[in-house]
């Protein structure tokens, strides 16, 4: 699969702060690529450099193997994390205005249906709810039939229904062969939507692979969770590595089936049993730590 985008040794310095530090990665054509990281990791800055919104301090960005040209803006769609529209325009007028900015725009009726904008077409932009505004912003990002779509924390502030709706749209876009680059704080979202993810911290890419391979390489196996009261035996006699988390005992095993059999043989009460399978959040926390970020 060809790379639609290559980022080479990208750096961005704001005063004394190095927001992006020698970041390099490549995005294959037709996939959903996630850029993950804690607050202030440099995700949005990296996105905006790639989008040609801000200039890098150093480094190269290649689109389809070449430096970006003026036509780049005709081929990309962007949903920013924070942006604004003309307040006094209606949703329909906003769509129409943006449609006229492109040479090969999407059919508005299709776009309106896809992003579920019909009920709010006559509403003014400043009267939209958070979810409605996000849907409009997504529609604007898709209005030029972009080949490469950037979504910067698209589900922030959305209720579960709206988030699911957004995910469906993203999967539809991907099914059409478009490439998506997104940032998100939701590991569930990244795992559900992204074919590849890169994890950033302090401006650098610290991991980059498919979610499954990242989990495999950074997590040891599944865990069985049971309340401490379920054990009528000395915990040191257990044939597992274990640790205590409050009043819960966490048993670590690479083979869940064998582990459960062992527990049954030991006559352990499994009524309140829970199994934790490692996920992207474990990878993320393992790599970036659990300390709070601003």
């Amino acid at each position, binding site marked *: 699969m060809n790379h639609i985008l290559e980022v080479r040794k990208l750096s961005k310095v704001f005063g004394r702060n190095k927001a992006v530090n020698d970041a390099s990665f490549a995005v294959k054509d037709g996939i959903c690529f996630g850029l993950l990281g804690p607050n202030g990791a440099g995700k949005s800055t990296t996105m905006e450099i790639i989008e040609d*919104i801000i200039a890098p301090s150093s480094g190269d960005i290649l689109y389809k193997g070449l430096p970006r040209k003026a036509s780049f803006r005709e081929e990309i769609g962007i949903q920013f994390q924070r942006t604004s529209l*003309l307040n006094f325009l209606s949703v329909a007028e906003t769509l129409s205005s943006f449609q006229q900015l492109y040479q090969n725009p999407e059919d508005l009726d299709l776009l309106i249906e896809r992003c579920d904008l019909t009920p709010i077409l006559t509403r003014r932009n400043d009267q939209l709810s958070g979810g409605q505004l996000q849907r409009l912003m997504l529609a604007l990002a898709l209005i030029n039939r972009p080949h490469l779509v950037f979504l910067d924390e698209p589900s922030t502030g959305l209720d579960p229904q709206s988030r699911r709706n957004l995910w469906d749209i993203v999967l539809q876009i991907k099914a059409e062969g478009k490439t998506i680059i997104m940032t998100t704080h939701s590991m569930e979202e990244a795992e559900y939507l992204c074919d590849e993810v890169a994890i950033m911290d302090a401006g650098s890419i610290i991991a980059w692979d498919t979610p499954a391979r990242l989990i495999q390489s950074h997590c040891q196996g599944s865990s069985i969770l049971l309340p401490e009261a379920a054990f009528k035996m000395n915990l040191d006699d257990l044939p597992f590595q274990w640790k205590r988390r409050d009043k819960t005992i966490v048993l670590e095993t690479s083979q869940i089936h064998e582990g459960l059999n062992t527990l049954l043989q030991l006559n352990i009460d499994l009524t309140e049993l829970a199994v934790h399978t490692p996920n992207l959040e474990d990878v993320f926390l393992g790599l970036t730590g659990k300390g709070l970020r601003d």
Partner: protein
Amino acid sequence: MNFKRMWAMFTARNHEFFRDRAAFGWNFAFPFLIIVGFGLIFGAKEHNQFKIGLFPGESRQAGMANTVPAAFQQGRYLQFINFASQVEGEQKLQHHKIDLLLDSRSPDHRYWINDSSPNGYIAEQIFLASLVPASEKLATKQLVRGVQIRYIDWLFPGILGMNMMFSALWGVGYVVVRYRKNGALKRLKATPLTPLEYLSAQMLSRIFLLMFTIVIVWIGSHLIFKFQVHGSYGALALIFFLGGLSLCSMGLVLAARGTSEEFTSGILNFVSWPMMFLSEVWFSLEGSPVWVQTLAKIFPLTHLLTGARKIMNEGASLVDVQRECLILVIITIISLTIAARLFSWNK
């Protein structure tokens, strides 16, 4: 330059402006109120330029009955105000509330002036002249012949121009900074729209609005004051159009990079206030120092008003104001080029 993209921004901005009822209404109300206000002060009746205090006096008639010369009482541009006592009158004089204080019952015409008041000096000369009998006067009065131009006729283009200046600088400059600050410009940067297309659309949208405003305000004011235009309306519209373009483009330069509304507000004030005072909106700069007159020429409003007054008051044709038109076009081209070069979409 892609005209389709520019048109999209032009119509979007127009929609926005026409729906912002408060701003829209104020654009008509402000110049109209100023014109009506000044018309009532200067146009409808004779304006009293100098204020003369009289004491002691229960009423004007009673106060003036004794010793105030008849020629002074009948003098034009004088307003007489009675004070109960000399102390009260002196206080008003000290604070420049009146220009001259007169003891209305004094046989030797005692009067007081404030040495630091230019108006006081002139009022004193008028008073002293009124004491000289008409037969002893050495000068011969001659009247200017021709069409009389009322002060309101002279002032009217100035107020329209001033409104145009404020609307152009603030309506374009301030709005662009606000869009930059709230991220609306950043969203547009993600599209193929170029700075020149965007700025041209902003400028044309504002000039469209300004010309529309001028027509409405003109009609409304004309119904009250019957303004006379000695030149052609077409030439007048053209000079206002070019003046509006140059002022809008100047606003775009001032807003090319700012992100702080407060700072931009300061810059706009720094430019608009000197321009208002030096561009002959309210008074002529005739007789002022040469450097002041030269400085005034850097402002587009000066050339707009010079041209507009020539057409309106002197009956000048387009050929007569071609110099002003050319200067306004040059200012527009230079400013728009600078604005497009300096323009920043995001913070």
